[in-house]
């Protein structure tokens, strides 16, 4: 009898202490989301300025740049998959990987080879466990990405893209990342990074009409300098969005874990009380029975 109460007490104690951890992680994630969202917003002016400049160049001169030309036949596609370093973020990494699997499937169906580039230890573990090959992996700091990482990734991918197929290059580059729509909605999505599809700005007002620029030193070199930056800024944006999504997913996962723990504690407390009451009742009836036996004799 007493043993049962002790078991419940132990369960309550251990659930209470894990709940404290969940609560702490939820609070940490919540405070970091704000920061991550500020960083997403802080990177916007740069991205906008670059996009504007690129579309200005592309709308005026016929661009014939290796980064924007479509290859006639795509034999190999590189895919960059963004996941988290740490778990405890609900289905965040799993759904990004699922999205990636879907993309792999599609690309394979089109007769393309896949070359994987990974970000985050979760993706690495997923690939290692299945014994699959990947070109390169970046880990560390997925919840607070640095621009330097984005630049490194950008350089690697560019290099892959510019290499010939025979030397292990890829003719297409895709990025799988989790878009941060809102605190409750984050959706895994795919973006084709290279060859670039330069989105020409919709001219809505006459004031928005892009002026006729002069280039210094010349359009080709300006484009040469612009496009890699454009790519880096897009990768950085994807990294930042993924980081915000990761934190939001973690916050939600930790919140529901904490709620479940509260629920469990409530259940165990009820069970403990029942057990205690049963013990008391039994003791009482034993005493009463004992007294009756004495009176009868």
């Amino acid at each position, binding site marked *: 009898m007493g043993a049962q109460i002790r078991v419940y007490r132990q369960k309550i104690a251990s659930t209470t202490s894990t709940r404290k951890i969940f609560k702490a992680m939820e609070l940490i994630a919540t405070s970091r989301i704000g920061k991550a969202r500020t960083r997403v917003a802080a990177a916007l002016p*740069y991205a906008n*300025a670059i996009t*504007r*400049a690129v579309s200005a160049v592309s709308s005026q001169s016929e661009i014939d740049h290796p980064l924007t030309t479509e290859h006639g036949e795509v034999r190999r596609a590189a895919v960059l998959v963004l996941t988290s370093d740490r778990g405890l973020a609900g289905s965040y990494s799993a759904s990004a990987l699922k999205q990636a699997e879907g993309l792999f499937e599609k690309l394979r169906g089109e007769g393309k080879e896949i070359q994987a580039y990974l970000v985050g230890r979760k993706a690495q573990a997923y690939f290692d466990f299945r014994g699959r090959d990947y070109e390169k992996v970046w880990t560390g700091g997925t919840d607070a990405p640095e*621009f330097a990482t984005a630049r490194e990734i950008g350089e690697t991918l560019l290099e892959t893209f510019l290499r010939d197929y025979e030397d292990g290059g890829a003719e297409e580059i895709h990025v799988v990342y989790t878009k941060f729509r809102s605190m409750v909605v984050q959706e895994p999505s795919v973006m084709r990074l290279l060859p670039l599809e330069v989105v020409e700005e919709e001219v809505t007002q006459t004031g928005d009409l892009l002026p006729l620029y002069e280039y*210094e*030193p010349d359009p080709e*070199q300006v484009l040469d300098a612009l496009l890699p930056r454009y790519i880096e800024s897009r990768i950085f944006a994807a990294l930042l969005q993924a980081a915000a999504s990761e934190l939001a997913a973690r916050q939600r996962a930790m919140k529901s874990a904490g709620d479940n723990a509260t629920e469990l504690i409530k259940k165990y407390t009820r069970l403990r009380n029942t057990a205690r009451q049963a013990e008391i009742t039994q003791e009482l009836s034993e005493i009463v029975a004992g007294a009756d036996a004495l009176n009868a004799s």
Partner: protein
Amino acid sequence: MATHGELEVEIVAADHFVWSGPARSVNARTTNGQIGILPGHTPILAILEAGELSVEPVNGDRLEVGVDGGFFSVDSNRVVIVADNARVGGSVSPEAD
């Protein structure tokens, strides 16, 4: 749109906003050499060299900004300087990276 002889300058770095405000002139170093931008400059897109660029604001002291490369665009008196890494020196306290 600033029309009365003032430049509207905006300096942005990859992960943060650096400075913006009205200015009288901007001096920058491009791959071809030094370039000075005054109000009414023709639209231009140029590559920045690593080094210092200076902005002469309408109010306040001259602003020196160290950049590691990037580019800038000028159109209708709007100057957008996009730097890979920008540090404001001189009168303004350095921006935390």
